[in-house]
């Protein structure tokens, strides 16, 4: 990979993750710059979600170093770690909404835990977040089991954004959304990045998202980053998987 990027919000060095005898990530390096939308692609089962989960600390690594907001997560004290966690938001692949809480309570949960504000402001912020992700306030008192797949994604994003984080991890945000919904979602991510100065780490398979939303693309293969750069770099790449990915039937359809 290219040399040190000074303004990296996430700095991953030499990460190795192993499940039993299978090495999923093998000495992986990755930088995510402040304020960019990084699209993260790779074949199914290559370990995209594993890397995300390793960065946020859900999967143990056997070697390597992870810095987020300049804090080394292994060396951080519990308080420092909580400070970092308060500044990021995570959208899980399946939404991971709390099934016994309503949409309102799901979105308000992190706010209520971290900030001492009035119920009125909590409600207003909840409605604002719902509006941002394109949902009507009427869904606020529904339970996650009463929502469609696309709505779950949106509510989960609203929850990830509840505390106005500086960094969001999106794990396949547009999978399961209709194309118009997915397009709106990309637009939304762009708007949020512009207005809130958000940094976005997006695992995706949606070529449209890669073209319209992402500033930079990183490709995972064989446990390493095999390429990183703009969409033009990706198209120019000679790597067989990349050629297939960016010049396949679907890619041509997207490029028109």
């Amino acid at each position, binding site marked *: 990979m290219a040399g040190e990027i000074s303004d990296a919000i996430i700095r991953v060095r030499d990460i190795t993750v192993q499940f039993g005898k299978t090495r999923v990530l093998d000495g992986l390096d990755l930088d995510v710059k402040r304020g960019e939308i990084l699209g993260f692609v790779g074949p199914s089962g290559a370990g995209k979600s594993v890397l995300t989960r390793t960065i946020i600390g859900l999967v143990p690594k056997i070697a390597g170093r992870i810095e987020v907001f300049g804090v080394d997560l292994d060396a951080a004290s519990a308080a420092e770690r909580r400070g970092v966690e308060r500044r990021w938001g995570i959208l899980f692949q399946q939404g991971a909404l709390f099934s016994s809480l309503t949409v309102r309570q799901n979105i308000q949960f992190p706010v209520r835990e971290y900030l001492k504000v009035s119920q009125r402001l909590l409600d207003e912020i909840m409605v604002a977040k719902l509006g941002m992700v394109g949902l009507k*306030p009427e869904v606020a008192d529904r339970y996650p089991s009463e929502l469609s797949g696309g709505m779950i994604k949106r509510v989960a994003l609203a929850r990830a954004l509840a505390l106005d984080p500086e960094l969001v991890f999106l794990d396949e945000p547009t999978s399961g959304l209709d194309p118009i919904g997915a397009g709106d979602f990309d637009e939304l991510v762009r708007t949020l990045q512009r207005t809130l100065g958000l940094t976005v780490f997006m695992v995706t398979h949606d070529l449209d998202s890669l073209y319209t939303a992402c500033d930079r693309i990183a490709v995972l293969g064989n446990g390493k980053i095999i390429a990183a750069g703009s969409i033009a770099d990706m198209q120019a790449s000679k790597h067989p998987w990349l050629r297939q990915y960016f010049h396949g039937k679907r890619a041509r359809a997207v490029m028109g």
Partner: protein
Amino acid sequence: MGIVSGDPTLERIARGNGLALCATGTWTARFAPLLERMVADAEKLGGKAPNIVIDASRVSKLDTFGAWLIERLRRSLTQGGVETEIAGLSANYSSLIDEVRRVKAEPVAETDRVTITGMLEQIGRSVAGVGGTLIGLIEMLGAVLAAAGHVLIRPRGFRLTSTIHHLEQVCWRAVPIVVLITFLIGCIISQQGIFHFRKFGADIFVVDMLGVLVLREIGVLLVAIMVAGRSGSAYTAELGSMKMREEIDALRTMGFDPIEVLILPRMLALVLALPILAFLGAMAALYGGGLVAWLYGGVDPEAFLLRLRDAISIDHFIVGLIKAPVMAAVIGIVACVEGLAVQGSAESLGQHTTSSVVKGIFFVIVMDGVFAIFFASIGM
């Protein structure tokens, strides 16, 4: 003037015949409680000036919380008849304000209040639900018997592997804990019996008590209660989470009967397991009782066995074992009905697992009572 970072402030500056509210500092979630108080104070300014400008040019950082509070201030001042506008926003921040401007004024209210009538209603509903519960259990019994009949006619539909797997889970793996607990209970019964019977010089009758109690009642009842707690809850949780993830719907759409595929093997495993466990439990309890009688009461093993042979008949043993499969069926049916009743949330899974165990144990004890009356009247 210039951008100011640090704690947020809202200064009031007279400007012409109007008023300017100068926002400075960091207007973000971190300072939300402070911001809320400041904005609430500023909202009272309505009527003090004909027009107010909210100047946000010196805000160093703005997020949804800050943007909404500025917008809320503008709205409430405008409502109070003051001409209000927001000025000095950078392009990025003004699009954020536009975003929150779409928020409807009055958020929907939460309607969840506890009232006496509501509580009474809930009691009424749960009483009325008892009938429904019984019908549900009978329905499930019917469905399981129908599936069993179906399998008898067409034995290839029988899931042997699954049955063996569940048998391992509910029977083989339960042996250590069942044997341990019944052994200890046997010890306790024996010790208490000897302690009290000794006062009358009737030490040896402890063997009669132990034999009858363990073989007829305690052995099977205790094991059934343990199985309800151990395997009934597991069945409910398994079926419930399968229901939550639409796995049961998937089975149905592939043309499989969930009763036949999921429930019949589980029921069969339980019905086979409970008599085996009850037998092992009874033996362990007798062994424990005998051991205590010998070490604590001085009844040597030979005398214990002789007395035991006189005290109990094969009837006691049969009465105990006949009850076991029936209790297993009750536990299994309750567990499966509860499992299939799970709704979408984790909370509902917990509720149904709890009620599976509670109802399972309740029905086991009721069944035991019914059996006691039945066996007494046929003279066994």
